[in-house]
């Protein structure tokens, strides 16, 4: 899998980088981090242009996120109709929309790089929850620049060890997401313990 993916980057160059970035934003399970690293490594070897790889990765990721966002947006009214059937669901839905409106931009930003595995879901939620297109695009484009820049430049710098580096970074990304989830759940648990201290 890894080998044929790398061969694909060698043959298709920046197109492979753009396509993989695009598809991974839409939940297609491609190890895009490895593809970005490989793009950077081939640039270091002189096979690809560094600017080209950066632009391709960024462009592909931004387009992919936009697509996810549009899909979410087209589902928005249907979700609202479903939610309005029950009072409790409607309240939850209204609260969720309020949160998206308030913190959606920052959430999109973080979901493109720090919490990248959550990206596709956040794009969909941002669209469905009614985050403005301009705000979504600006936060998303800024975040993707960080994500793509980080991986491509790491590949450029450490071109001789990209497969090991990919596995290291994948563990590191997993750690960040798991640690973030643990913090959120831990916070909720502590709050519940305090609410019912005698139980």
């Amino acid at each position, binding site marked *: 899998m890894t080998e044929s993916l790398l061969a694909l980057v060698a043959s298709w160059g920046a197109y492979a980088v753009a396509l993989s970035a695009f598809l991974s934003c839409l939940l297609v399970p491609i190890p895009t981090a490895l593809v970005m690293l490989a793009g950077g490594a*081939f640039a270091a070897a002189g096979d690809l242009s560094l600017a080209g790889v950066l632009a391709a990765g960024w462009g592909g990721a931004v387009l992919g996120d936009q697509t996810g966002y549009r899909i979410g947006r087209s589902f928005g009214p249907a979700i609202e109709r479903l939610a309005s059937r029950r009072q409790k669901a409607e309240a939850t839905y209204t609260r969720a929309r309020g949160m998206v409106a308030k913190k959606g931009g920052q959430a999109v930003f973080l979901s493109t790089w720090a919490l990248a595995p959550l990206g596709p879901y956040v794009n969909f939620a941002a669209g469905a929850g009614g985050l403005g297109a301009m705000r979504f695009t600006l936060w998303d484009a800024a975040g993707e620049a960080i994500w793509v820049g980080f991986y491509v430049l790491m590949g450029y710098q450490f071109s001789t060890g990209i497969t090991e580096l990919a596995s290291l970074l994948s*563990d590191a990304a997993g750690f960040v997401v798991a640690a973030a989830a643990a913090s959120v*759940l831990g916070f909720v648990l502590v709050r519940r313990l305090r609410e019912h201290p005698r139980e």
Partner: protein
Amino acid sequence: MAAFWRRNRLLVLAFAIVLGLAVFFGVGAIRKARDFDVAKEQPIAAWMTPRFVSHSWDVPREAMMDILRLEEGGRGRVTLEELAEEKGLTVEAYIGEIEAGIAAFRAAQGK
């Protein structure tokens, strides 16, 4: 405490699972970071291009072209697998040839 557990069983379980995952990935990342060695050459593989091998093994381009038995000329990116096929070799045999060639080049350089 028992009532708390009954009421929040799922939440506690989910917390334990993500905490376990965080430890698992964290330990993996630290171990891999410790073993990561930039100076080490990557074993030559079918997906690599001539330039990539030349860059990774620090062999000048001209010497690399000799080792690969390639004519200098403007070819696009091409993998070792494709080159081996053109030469009617298995990619393993071609890689063996390249490794021997690099060793010979280094010996000649007195490295």
